[in-house]
């Protein structure tokens, strides 16, 4: 009955339909990109770029307010988010070179820059409301317009095609950079491509799930699946299932209880992870007792 109601809502309500299509895209793309993020130990970069990209979106809104009356053109702030996200990856690399032993400082510096620029531009841009900033932080998937959806779909297809075409190279690089290099993979170029894909993913996710939940959706399904996966393919499939399941449960809960969608999806993901922790611990205890 619950599912039937949701199904009816999907067919009848435009914004709900857009939202569920966007959510399915997130459900598939995030574990794919998340796997690379986890194996390459880029979790912190994902968080840094999402904060820096936020500054881009807010500056985009600021510029749109100025430029629209003057040039009579409109800019989608998401493009500024993408530019900042990609620019952020280069800045992180440049700043890393200033430190020999404390390279991770570069990420803290970029987060600080991102957050301070965000704060500044929110305060100097007329007409930015609390609901706008809340949406940036926690996402507004139900407010996804058709144009946004097309943009998200376009980038998602680009990311998907890139991963499908280069999966052997990507996986080989992820597991062993030295081997990748001597096998003739252009490591620098592939690394750059992976970072750009990560930056793109983050920028398109900002509007949907918000800055604070991006790394949750990228990383938690993978963090769960590596604990129970038996092979690489099997682990990716499990993470996609976990991701999709969280999205469906999140949708159902937010439809009935009016909970914020992004937070609900993230929480379901984390609950599943804790159930896996718990089950593994129990299995461990049973195994030890049997051995005794």
């Amino acid at each position: 009955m619950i599912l039937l109601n949701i199904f009816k809502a999907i067919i009848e309500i435009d914004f709900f339909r857009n939202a569920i299509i966007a959510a399915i895209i997130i459900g598939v793309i995030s574990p794919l990109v998340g796997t690379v993020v986890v194996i390459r130990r880029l979790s912190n970069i994902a968080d840094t770029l999402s904060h820096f990209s936020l500054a881009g979106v807010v500056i985009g809104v600021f510029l749109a307010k100025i430029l629209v009356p003057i040039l009579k053109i409109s800019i989608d702030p998401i493009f500024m988010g993408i530019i900042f996200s990609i620019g952020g990856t280069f800045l992180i690399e440049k700043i890393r070179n200033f430190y020999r032993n404390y390279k991770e400082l570069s990420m803290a510096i970029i987060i600080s820059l991102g957050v301070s620029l965000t704060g500044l531009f929110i305060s100097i841009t007329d007409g930015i409301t609390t609901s706008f900033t809340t949406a940036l932080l926690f996402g507004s998937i139900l407010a996804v317009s058709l144009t946004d959806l097309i943009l998200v779909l376009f980038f998602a297809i680009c990311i998907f095609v890139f991963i499908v075409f280069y999966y052997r190279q990507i996986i080989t690089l992820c597991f062993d950079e030295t081997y990748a290099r001597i096998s003739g993979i252009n490591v620098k170029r592939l690394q750059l491509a992976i970072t750009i894909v990560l930056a793109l993913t983050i920028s398109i996710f900002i509007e949907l799930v918000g800055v604070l939940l991006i790394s949750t959706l990228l990383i938690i399904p993978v963090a769960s699946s590596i604990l129970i996966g038996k092979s690489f393919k099997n682990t990716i499939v499990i993470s996609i299932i976990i991701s999709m399941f969280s999205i469906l449960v999140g949708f159902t809960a937010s439809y009935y209880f009016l909970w914020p969608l992004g937070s609900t999806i993230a929480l379901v993901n984390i609950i599943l992870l804790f159930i896996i922790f718990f089950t593994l611990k129990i299995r461990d205890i049973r195994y030890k007792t049997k051995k005794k």
Partner: protein
Amino acid sequence: MRINVNDLTFGYTQRPVLKNVTFSLTSGEFLSVVGKNGTGKSTLIKCLLKIVAVPNNTIFFDDIDINALKRFYHVGYVPQKSEITYEFPITVNEFLSYAYLKRKDAYFTSVINALDLNPIYNENINNLSGGQLQRVLIARALLNKPKLLILDEPTVSIDNESILALNNILKKLHDELTTIILSTHDLEFAREHSDCYLVLNEKYEHRFLSGKDYDDIIEYI
């Protein structure tokens, strides 16, 4: 593959790790690089694999400066086991077939059979014993159809049976005229195979010795 190393000096800071290292190998020769910890064995391997930036005109593969090579052809590398820290689930089959970078073919199957990997083909790589993982890493190196094979401490933490298996594989490759460079602490193991030795020590007095000069190694080490 012919290897020439010509007056190679390399260091990460002001103090060099390798100083004026010179040696050359003809195709099919087996070189063991021996020396105490910290004498630059691993650094030499990093230089040979271009993991670190080496000066021009110091290392040549088949008379071509490695800095002029856009990519390596036919070079296999077996890393130290301690460098392998996989936690992500991946089976032997997946690990090797992704590393092959193309569809599996008869050569791929022949490598799997040669290293007797069929019994562990669908095992998660993280559950393998030291010897089994060693065989997987050698298989991966062989997938590049190497004319030069570089091995970094392959006998560390593997059992005697695996060392025996490794001996047989290296003998076969040596017979097939693969040039092999082995970095090791295990002098007995080196003695089994080596045509020549490169002894590195802390005073930068490196020695290039022929196989029959095995007894002199201790003096220079």
